[in-house]
């Protein structure tokens, strides 16, 4: 057996919400029997951007804000991999927000775990695009779930809270199953408090509301989801659980129609393709 890297211990502060996220990912990978060598965890920049070091899989540390395009590239080049992108609210809602919009639109079968703590922790406490949770007088927050609901291609929108491990684990398993089945982009926002710069455990514990437990809630109805999310928000509550799931076609399924052949595994030896190359060249004959 070849010796390779051993996952390291997290660098997070004791009590950080990210521990729960890491555990949920590890548990969900085990729950669906996902082989480590067929898994790639990509993370952005920030405290959340070290999570790949702590999981037994292929890992990648992306440029700030670019974890989603990179994850899309991996998935399209090798759709057989389980691709999990992870990052913080700064990475996903500020510098990388444009890519999030297009990820919803394209719907690649990638899991995206966005750890929202309302703050830039690694640079010691600057405000993030969800800073409203700390200071209600500041700019209003970006709500990733509402954003996803507004884009017709979105297919899996969930929110969990790292202070509620059972729900977080269940949501993560559902997200991995959604991606593993090739159903598209599984977006999971995890409310994940920063104990050092924005300890919101007490606040959030009292506000999270699991929509799954609401009587008659239908996660396949985009309109019901929109209505519920905004009704709860107006009541000062934080909707969690599997909020919306659809059968919108995945991005890679569109490619599969066109003779797609897992680009990462194509044998590109000249002898195999020379006839094709020659016939293309012939079109330029002069």
């Amino acid at each position, binding site marked *: 057996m070849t010796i390779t890297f051993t996952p390291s211990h997290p660098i997070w502060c004791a009590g950080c919400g990210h521990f729960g996220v890491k555990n949920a990912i590890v548990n969900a990978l085990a729950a669906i029997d996902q082989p480590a060598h067929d898994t790639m965890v990509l993370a952005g920049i920030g405290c959340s951007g070290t999570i790949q070091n702590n999981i037994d899989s292929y890992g990648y*540390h992306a440029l700030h804000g670019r974890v989603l395009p*990179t994850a899309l590239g991996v998935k399209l080049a090798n759709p057989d991999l389980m691709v999990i992108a992870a990052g913080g609210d700064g990475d996903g809602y500020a510098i990388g927000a444009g*890519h999030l919009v297009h990820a919803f639109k394209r719907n690649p079968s990638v899991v995206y775990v966005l750890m929202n703590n309302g703050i830039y922790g690694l640079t010691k406490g600057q405000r993030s695009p969800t800073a409203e949770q700390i200071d209600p007088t500041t700019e209003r927050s970006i709500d990733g779930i509402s954003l996803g609901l507004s884009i017709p291609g979105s297919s899996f929108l969930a929110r969990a809270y790292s202070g509620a491990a059972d729900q977080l684990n269940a949501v993560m398993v559902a997200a991995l199953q959604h991606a593993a089945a090739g159903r598209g982009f599984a977006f999971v926002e995890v409310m994940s408090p920063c104990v050092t710069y924005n300890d919101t455990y007490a606040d959030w514990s009292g506000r999270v509301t699991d929509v799954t437990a609401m009587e008659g809630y239908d996660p396949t109805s985009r309109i019901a989801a929109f209505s519920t999310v905004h009704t709860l928000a107006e009541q000062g509550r934080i909707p969690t659980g599997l909020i919306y799931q659809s059968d919108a076609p995945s991005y890679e399924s569109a490619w599969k129609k066109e003779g797609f052949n897992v680009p990462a595994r194509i044998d590109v030896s*000249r002898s195999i393709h020379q006839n094709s190359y020659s016939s293309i060249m012939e079109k*330029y004959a002069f």
Partner: protein
Amino acid sequence: MTISAKLDDLTIMVAGQGGDGSLTVMNVLSELFGRRGYHLYKSRNVASRIKGGIAAAQMRASVISRGCTGDQIDLVVAFDQEAVTNVGADLSPDAVVVFDSSDKPLDRRNLADSVRVIEIPFGRYAVRDLRRDLFKNSMSFGVISQLMNIDQDEAEDCLRHTLHRLPERVLLPNIDSFADGRKFALADKIASGGYPWHLERVTRAKHLMINGNDAIAFGFMAAGGRFFCGYPITPATEILEWLQKHLPAMGGVAMQAEDELAAINIALGAAMTGVRTMTATSSPGFSLMAEGISHSGSAEIPLVITNSQRAGPSTGMPTKPEQSDIAMMIHCGNGEFPRVVLAPGDPGDCFKIGAAATNLAQRIQGPVIIAVDQAVAQDARSVTPFDLEAVEPHDGARMSEDALQAMATYRRYELNPSGVSPWAVPGTKGGMSLVTGNERNEWGLVTTVPAKRREMMEKRAAKIDHVRADLPKGIRGGDRAARVGIIGCGMQSGVIAEASERLNARGTPVQYLQVRTLWPVLDETAEFIRSCDHVYVVEHNGEGQLAHLLDGHGAFGNLRSLTKNDGVPFRCADLVRHIATFEANTMHGDAA
């Protein structure tokens, strides 16, 4: 009329307002000259808009293969006055202007008396006889074909071939229009002057007619490239379009991203899985990709980045050529990391370098930049067929699962003398590893330990030496004993070769070097500079970026910068005059 004497080398321009169909006329003429065995060099001069603005297509047809347009224009087909006014000063003394006089007669104030003008109201006739202004371009071809003494059957066959995609109901009026044009030419004043031109029939082996962008895309694919991601931008978009057309049929992916930041990061993600990957853009887009290029260098991810440069700064002149990103391509991206920058000089070279870059990226596990300019990227020219058999995809240090199993320990960033670490791509059993742009230890875990930092910087830098011997060599020509040198790359390649030929013929001995590897600067470049008393460095930018680069590599104050940044390629005649004058003054100075 003594025009027939120069029919071995003829430059033609068809010009009008965008949407006039100038390009179609030029396509029929290329078909005609191609069948007669000429070599062609075609360029377009268009505004960055869909319709309107001056649109001109230019073509040099020559018996000898040439890599640039001619000094002067011998034949102009113009659909409006502005086109003639613009081109007036560039006409040869015995040029012929075929003018659409539908609106009013030609104002020939800026034309030399010796220029012959043939005025026919193409647009008016086309509307009168065929009910559509657009048929005027086929009519103009009818006139030109008569002017060149091409018989009706041959000319019509060329027209039919060029328009073969049109439905019969559109094709037939075009043929009628063409026949009308021939009749008008007969009836008009051309008759009084006779038909001055007689095209040669020469034998030329089969060639390809292709532009640089298409050839780069083809070279990439032939070397096993199966993933492309880009964002539309002039003048690089043809690479995206070519690969969108051809890669899916090969099982690959060519996709359009939401912006250049996404494009290069999608490309990095794909490249990590082992598929040979390229992105392509033009100057402002390349600026946006800089962070990703640095990441490719640091994280050790093989990636080809093509920059089809346009005139800057900022959004600059999108449809005009420039070589003003040379310094950026060599230095862009934060920090220091190994990279290769290659500069092909014509479409044949674009194919070779497209393939070479794809293999080199695998071998250095890092960024390889292909530097072209709008002229090389978009001008089409006849080149010898590509040597497909010379291209074999190279895996570099990629490991199969079996090779991995045979290792006791696998470290993604293993230190070794070549600097290139063995690499197991995601999906390989037992190869789990970490890839990062942060400084890291051999396992890929972040570190700032000074000794490890030094080792890792040295490891990455060593990769260039690992491939140095295989970097594309320059092309040398001219008088190898000459003490005067000329250096250029990209769009200068054809001009400096022809200028060297003319200078040597008129008694000014020169030799030239077309540089094909810009970075690292090869020893051969330094040796060339040292072998000359002085060297003219010809480039399209204002600051002499290539000269500055070479100043630190072998030059001893003996470089003379010849620069231009007005969006118009150097004319060979200007370059010859410039160097000849400089040399005459130098000799005079030496004598004094």
